[in-house]
């Protein structure tokens, strides 16, 4: 007989606290807890272990399996555009990606299309040197679209395998900055139809519910093909991505776990979910 499941309410409240404290968000947490109640109705095992495992399954299923990246990565050059709000780790992540691509034997060029912030191109220059990648930059105040254009042009002409474009941090609520991003994307597409092949939205693991709005707004301006969560070496769980992935079905490509050039890992949904309860 399947009466209303008598799950230990105290356990559910503790689990609710864990999930909300991981930034998963009130609504989604309520939905997950309700799904768990329904699932466990017809389960013999209603132990706490079973409840936690059911929640872990619910969470893991939210992530889309990475579609094969094969055909994109064979483009010459394979172009990645890096976007996100201020201070999340875009420039650092490009350094890490450049290093990884170089180590796999690729010829890499990066474009310093943040022509606004103080010492932005100097910062990317240091990362490019560390990764042994080449750099295109212009004077402060130059049109970011022209930097992007020149970078891709050079990447085509000189047969680079990978070209990455760094952009200025921008709040999604600023229309002029979002239309600047649209311009950058179109400049890239103009010089190489089909590019950028990937556009990664960089998210800080410490971000709260604002992450969902960030994703929605950036998607309006450019096709976001992947997410990168940075600063997961801290205590923040990065749970705001669950709502994004639930709503937008975008894969998480990498996670940033430190400030060194090799502190980038491929996203693994199981360990990410495990860490929430860790």
């Amino acid at each position, binding site marked *: 007989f399947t009466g209303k499941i008598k799950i230990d309410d105290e356990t559910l409240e503790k689990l609710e*606290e864990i999930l*909300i*404290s*991981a*930034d998963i*968000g*009130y609504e989604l947490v309520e939905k997950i807890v309700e799904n768990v109640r329904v699932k466990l109705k017809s389960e013999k095992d209603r132990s706490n272990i079973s409840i936690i495992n059911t929640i872990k399954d619910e969470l893991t299923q939210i992530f889309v399996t990475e579609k094969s990246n094969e055909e994109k990565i064979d483009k010459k050059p394979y172009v990645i555009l890096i976007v996100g*709000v*201020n*201070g*999340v*780790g875009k420039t650092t992540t490009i350094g890490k990606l450049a290093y990884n691509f170089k180590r796999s034997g690729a010829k890499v060029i990066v474009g310093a299309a943040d022509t*606004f*912030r*103080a*010492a932005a191109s*100097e*910062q990317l*220059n*240091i*990362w490019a040197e560390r990764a042994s990648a080449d750099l295109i930059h212009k004077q402060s105040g130059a049109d970011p679209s022209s930097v992007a254009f020149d970078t891709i042009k050079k990447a085509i002409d000189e047969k680079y395998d990978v070209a990455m474009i760094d952009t200025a941090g921008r*709040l*999604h*609520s*600023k229309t002029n900055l979002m239309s600047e991003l649209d311009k950058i994307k179109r400049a890239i597409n103009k010089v190489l139809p089909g590019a950028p092949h990937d556009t990664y939205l960089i998210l*800080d*693991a*410490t*971000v*709260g*519910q*604002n*992450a969902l*709005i960030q994703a929605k707004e950036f998607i309006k301006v450019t096709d976001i093909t992947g997410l990168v969560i940075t*600063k997961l*070496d*801290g*205590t*923040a*769980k990065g*749970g*705001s991505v669950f709502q994004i992935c639930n709503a937008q079905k975008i894969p998480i490509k990498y996670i940033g776990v430190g*400030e060194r050039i090799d502190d980038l890992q491929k996203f693994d949904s199981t360990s990410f979910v495990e860490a929430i309860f860790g």
Partner: protein
Amino acid sequence: DLSLKLETALKKVRGQGRLTEKNISDSLREIRRILLDADVNYKVAKEFIERVTEKALGKEVIASISPGQLITKIIFDELVVLLGSDRSELKINASGITTLMAVGLQGSGKTTFCGKLAKRLKENKRKILLVAADVYRPAAIEQLKQLAEKIGISVFSIEQPDARKTVKEALKFAAQQNFDTLIFDTAGRLHVDGEMMKEIADIKEIVSPNEILFVVDAMTGQDAVNSAKTFNETVDFDGIVLTKLDGDARGGAALSIRSVVGKPIKFVSNGEKLDSLEVFHPDRLASRILG
């Protein structure tokens, strides 16, 4: 508008004379949802609801004000009190050198804030020296120098990537050159990075700053209390700076941090330009948190 949202939950309260635990339970649930959506910490939201309940219970529902408006007023007032009842000024010395320091997690806006603070204090005719004590981040010193150049302020830095040596030398240099205000930019660091937290504790010991400001991103979620607590335990900071408020993050982290460390919010940064720095207004943040 919050009172309108609560109206539905409180329909049954009209004509009942007083607010009771039973007739406001739905609206309390709604308020909790609003606070969590605004990034207020789970435990802090719980405690806040309890305080509001205490204040609300037994209140008479007079004819001229709706129950929704009554509860909203209680919530708003309580939020304003929690956010800024002890609004305070920067500790500036009347004579001698004043030293101010910015600390916080990576990317929160410290370097930009140091530039803004320098610009503001320069308008008060002070002789300011910016100290580039972030010796790790690529081009961090260059970033501070470029910001400083815009406002005609000197930056002190040394060749070696040694933060402790930098601040020691800066103090000597400032004394020799008769600077009266030193603003220290430090590297972003994780509260769980033992070595880096030791560094900031040592720097505090060397400099003995008049004012340490914890710079925090307004879009920070539930983790805000963790970093705030640890930084406070390590350096006992004097105030908080909330950055990127020109975005649309609700800023509930500010309430969480305030509740947990009890330090005042001194400044709000609402833009990337060097003049985008404001003194904190608790009522504005309160309405923002309540959405």
